[in-house]
């Protein structure tokens, strides 16, 4: 009988985190880099939820939803981060007519 354990979920989340890091480090377009960051945040959410489900050190009288609450905050911060970062990408395009990170070397010029 196959059983899904905590390690399965951690492996999936580790793979997605690695793909997110690879995207964020190696893409040239600012928007693609942001997509990598979103994937990494998603992987961290999966870790929080799986520990909340399988964690053995939790007081059993209270329903174990502290991980869920943490994920709600991560979602909030991710939404705020995406809004501000994409506004910065649009601003960068307006000033330089490019979103290519290889052609943006300095903060001001």
């Amino acid at each position, binding site marked *: 009988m*196959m*059983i*899904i*354990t*905590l*390690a399965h*979920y*951690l*492996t*999936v*989340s*580790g*793979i*997605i*985190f*690695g*793909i*997110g*890091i*690879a995207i*964020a480090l*190696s893409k*040239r*377009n600012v*928007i*693609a880099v*942001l*997509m990598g960051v*979103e*994937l990494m945040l*998603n992987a961290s*959410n999966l870790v929080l939820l799986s520990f909340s*489900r*399988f964690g*053995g050190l939790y007081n059993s009288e209270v*329903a174990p*939803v502290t991980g*869920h*609450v943490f*994920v*709600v*905050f991560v*979602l*909030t*911060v*991710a*939404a*705020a*981060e*995406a*809004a*501000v970062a*994409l*506004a*910065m990408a*649009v601003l960068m395009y307006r000033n330089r007519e*490019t*979103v*290519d990170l*290889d052609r943006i070397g300095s903060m001001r010029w």
Partner: protein
Amino acid sequence: MESLGVVIAFYVLSTITIGSALAVFLLRNLVHAIVLLVLSFLGMAGLFLTLSADFIAISQILIYAGAISVLLVFAVMLTPLGSRDNANSLYINIGAPVGFLISLLIGFMAWNTSWNELSSNEIKQRDFTDTIREIGDQLLDKHLLSFEVASVLLLFALVGAIILVKEVKKEEDLIVESENS
């Protein structure tokens, strides 16, 4: 984690999620990459459902697959002269190995650590039906301060994004306007 359906759902959903995340890395078209990123978010929401986190799964679909993907598409559309080819820079020689090594490291640690996790019977005993009620209780009780801080953060992000993309009038235009009036 005892029923066969959960096992099948876990493998199918993680295949979808990992496969479409890989496709985001490999595809040569930025808009296609965004579509597959949405698919990856949806698969992740399904994985959250297998962890019996229903509220978080719905929030994931609303916020990630709904709002953030629309924001990404808007950013692509607002940069019409930018490249659409999803190309890699030279840093791929560092980035891809680093990502691979981190995946390997996390996988190794996941399988070689004793996590002191609950068995499926204990999880069953501890089951509760309504995550939304519990999350709401804790959010307004134990975590009230962070809840308020999060609302302030959202307000600042809203104002900051609007200020950043607002059209700034040039000084000459302002002078001409004041002369006209």
